[in-house]
């Protein structure tokens, strides 16, 4: 048994919700530091992708004064990218199923969903590598023009985020398999899941704004 004290002063009461009243953790905020840190990181990552998406939108149809060549928008294969988007979207489902599985102490199920999520992420990355390769073969390199630089930087940064997510998922699978991560630390999987879902919502924006909006 651990005992914590609650300050009922107006300052502490301000902003409290029903959730806060039912979740008492031994921190000043009543929330775990790890989860707060992940949300703060995701909030800051919004700024990174906000800047990259803004840059692409401003430069998407510009090739610069002394360069030429196609823009990425000229070469988009929407049906192919739609399938990739669907795969990433479904990986969010398998991720949340992994979280609920470990919360129910169903370790084998959790391992299965973790591996499935990593696999779907790998399929997405393979699709991105294929897309980049086909664009390059059609004459659109990173330095072909300013539009292509903005496109590769944006989608490349997203790809790096997905790749890091895959590494984290595989690490979780190894820890769960080795018995080093059990139901008592389910929040660790939940925090990795937050990162994975964030990568998914960034792609939701990229897919609509970069690929679909003319």
């Amino acid at each position, binding site marked *: *048994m651990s005992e914590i*004290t609650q300050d009922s002063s107006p300052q502490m009461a301000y902003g409290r919700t029903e959730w806060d009243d039912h979740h008492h953790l031994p921190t000043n905020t009543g929330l775990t530091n790890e989860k707060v840190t992940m949300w703060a990181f995701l909030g800051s990552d919004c700024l990174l992708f906000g800047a990259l998406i803004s840059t692409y939108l*401003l430069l998407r149809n510009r090739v610069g004064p002394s360069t030429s060549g196609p823009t990425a928008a000229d070469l988009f294969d*929407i049906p192919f990218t739609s399938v990739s*988007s669907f795969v990433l979207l479904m990986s969010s489902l398998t991720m*949340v199923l992994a979280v609920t599985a470990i919360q129910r102490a169903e370790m084998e199920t959790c391992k299965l969903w973790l591996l499935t999520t990593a696999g779907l992420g790998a399929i997405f990355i393979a699709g991105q590598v294929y897309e980049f390769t086909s664009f390059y073969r059609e004459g659109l390199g990173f330095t072909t023009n300013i539009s292509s630089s903005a496109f590769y930087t944006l989608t490349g940064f997203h790809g790096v985020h997905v790749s890091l997510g895959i590494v984290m998922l595989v690490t979780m699978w190894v820890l769960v398999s080795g018995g080093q991560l059990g139901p008592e630390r389910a929040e660790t999987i939940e925090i990795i899941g937050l990162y994975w879902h964030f990568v998914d*919502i960034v792609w939701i924006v990229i897919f609509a704004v970069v690929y679909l909006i003319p």
Partner: protein
Amino acid sequence: MNTAAVSDEDTHDEHHDHGLSDVGYIKIALILGVLTAVEVATYFWDFGILEVPSLLILMVVKFQIVVSYFMHLKFDSKVFTYIFVTGLVLAMLVFAAMGTSMVFWQNPSGCDISTFC
């Protein structure tokens, strides 16, 4: 000051009581799949002047669904919502600042910086 005694087991169990069931999450994923299909349909069929607004609305709805249900913001502490929305608002301000810069930052020849002329 009041005092509350909370066992580690109680705290652990309370983490399980929010969110949806597995079936609920599958239903959410199906809704997201349908919304994605509608998005892709705008590429194959001409939606006219409704194309861009409908794509933006679909994007916002999908974003909201994933953040609310898969990321549990709907069920979690409001503190997480405040932290995340702060980042999101700042990101939109970055976009607005860059957008306006392309309109207002022009040299005397009338050539704006984005055209590199």
